[in-house]
């Protein structure tokens, strides 16, 4: 992917936390109780830590979806975020574009703290950060034509002075994402998954953004189409000078598209490295386990591989383990891991890892 042209950060995230009160979860299919952490505890009530009791009362805990993450995204780079289901990737993405209010911490876009920005500045900043959603079926309004979907941001921000200009702009954007201008009056259900994802990308582009958060842009798209979308995202990045944050659970995809990759576990980033180092020299035991778990489409490699199989499941984000969150499943855990949360170890060049046993 494109070599980043500048080292200036476009986005800084400082100690971001996002907790969900348990009762808020309405539409979400994944309920916290789905993830019974330790099997033996069964349905016995869990003992809540003191602080949590203070925060949320003894009755229920908060889902610590994102639990203190800090990182910077450089202008023009592709920043990858990878981790298992429920580790908080989507929550980070949505908090960045302002769909969720952070519980704690700050998001600084081009030097402006977004939670403090007001008025025109706020609107400008919001506009410059867009999002592409995972599900190409759910992310398009079924009652709007493609033209209306792509035209809506143009209307909202007054990006076209008259009807003709609007129409032209829409055609231009559709062309950019490889859709036919004839598609303008059609409805989303007339398109295949890959085409719908293109419409979603067109909508994001219509606002003329600088940073796009792509939440699993290809995981719901046919295998044979994924490369089309990925190549297109790359091309758009070069043509329009975009910065990407790409979220995925597919490590090989993330490694392929990103310049730097942040590996998340249970609401925290455990390692942040350049993607070439990710495969060659993974530092965190979780990263290593993740890499070794990824199936490789090559029977030769698969036969020779030594797998690190992680035992058990991901613990619940309602009641994460003490110390290093990963210690319950880590094969190289030390006694200290259970007690103390590891600090960041700088690996130079903006790379770091949090582990006691390096």
């Amino acid at each position: 992917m494109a070599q980043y042209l500048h080292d200036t950060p476009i986005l800084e995230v400082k100690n971001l936390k996002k907790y969900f009160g348990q009762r808020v979860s309405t539409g979400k299919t994944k309920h916290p109780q789905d993830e019974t952490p330790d099997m033996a505890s069964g349905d016995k009530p869990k003992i809540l830590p003191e602080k949590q009791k203070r925060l949320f009362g003894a009755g229920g805990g908060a889902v610590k979806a994102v639990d203190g993450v800090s990182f910077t995204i450089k202008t023009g780079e592709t920043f990858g975020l990878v981790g298992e289901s429920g580790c908080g990737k989507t929550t980070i993405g949505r908090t960045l574009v302002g769909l969720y209010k952070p519980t704690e911490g700050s998001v600084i876009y081009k030097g402006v703290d977004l939670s403090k920005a007001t008025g025109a500045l706020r609107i400008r900043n919001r506009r410059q950060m867009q999002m592409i959603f995972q599900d190409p079926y759910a992310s398009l309004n079924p009652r709007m034509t493609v033209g209306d979907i792509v035209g809506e941001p143009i209307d909202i921000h007054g990006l076209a002075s008259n009807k003709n200009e609007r129409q032209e702009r829409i055609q231009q954007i559709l062309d950019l994402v490889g859709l036919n201008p004839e598609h303008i009056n059609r409805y989303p259900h007339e398109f295949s998954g890959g085409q719908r994802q293109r419409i979603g990308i067109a909508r994001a582009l219509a606002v003329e953004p600088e940073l796009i958060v792509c939440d699993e842009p290809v995981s719901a798209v046919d295998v044979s189409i994924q490369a089309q979308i990925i190549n297109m995202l790359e091309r758009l990045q070069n043509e329009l000078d975009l910065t990407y944050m790409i979220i995925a659970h597919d490590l090989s995809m993330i490694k392929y598209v990103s310049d730097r990759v942040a590996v998340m576990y249970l609401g925290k980033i455990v390692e942040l490295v350049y993607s070439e180092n990710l495969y060659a020299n993974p530092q965190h035991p979780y990263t290593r386990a993740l890499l070794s778990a990824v199936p490789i489409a090559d029977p030769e490699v698969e036969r020779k591989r030594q797998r690190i199989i992680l035992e058990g499941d991901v613990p619940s984000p309602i009641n994460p383990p003490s110390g290093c969150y990963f210690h319950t499943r880590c094969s190289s855990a030390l006694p200290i891991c259970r007690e103390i949360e590891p600090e960041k170890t700088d690996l130079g060049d903006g790379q770091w890892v949090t582990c006691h046993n390096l």
Partner: protein
Amino acid sequence: MKLSKELFSFLQSKEIQVDIVRPSTTYWQDAWRRLKQNPVAIASLILIVLIILVAIVGPLFSPYSYSAQNFDSTNQGPSAEHWFGTDGLGRDLFTRVLHGARISLSIGFVASLLTLGVGVLYGGIAGFAGGRVDNIMMRFVDIMYSIPFLLWVIMMMVYLKEILPENAGLISIYIALGLVFWLPMARIVRGQILSLKEQEFILAAHTIGASRWRILIRHLIPNCVGPIIVTATLAIPEAIFTEAFLSFIGLGVSAPKASWGMLASDALTSLKSYPHLLFFPAGAICITLLAFNFLGDGLRDSLDPKMRK
């Protein structure tokens, strides 16, 4: 088998077919296509259109007026002259039933429209605002629900009759029904909106900077039209029935205006000797209610997004 060599030359240019060729149908075309497959609903629709047409133009062609009394021919049975016979004051029953249709249908439609306006907005706002606003708004709905519906309408009617001038019987029925009928609509719309607002296309609307109002009007409500239309359609027969009931117990429109309920109520006194007086208005009520209910059910099936692929 030997095949000719040219057959194995690579194609030079090939128009790449990017389109998925699906028939381009809008939601409405699609719903209409499904509705057409339901003969009962279509028959009901035709019947309703007929009833409405007859109610509008019928009285214009009738030689009789709905209020003109004729004591020479009272309580006649159906005949070529008076199709449905005449009532105790010698008024032509057919004309009166036609007029009744105007009143009953107008009550149905007005109540349904009020339901639409108030219920959709109320439920929409409650569902979209969520949290405490939603809680308060829906508890209010619950309280309204807990008052027996008829009691509430009767109370409203009695009260409205007090404050409104004498000939405003129809208006007070509109208001009384409108005030009650929006409740189920509000609940349904709120439920729909609650489940819709977590969907990604709503989140997408937020990120491109759409205002809350825009999201509600342009994104949320259009996606509930199916249930809204069904609920509104089913509110029509309910309103007609309620009005008939109110007229029956003497709270409806005032004479000489005649709604179907009133005609039925009037017929009751002489039921044994002149059953046709009850038969025609009651039949009209029955047929209309059935037609609207069948149509409502048919619409529910055809507008249900779950059936869509």
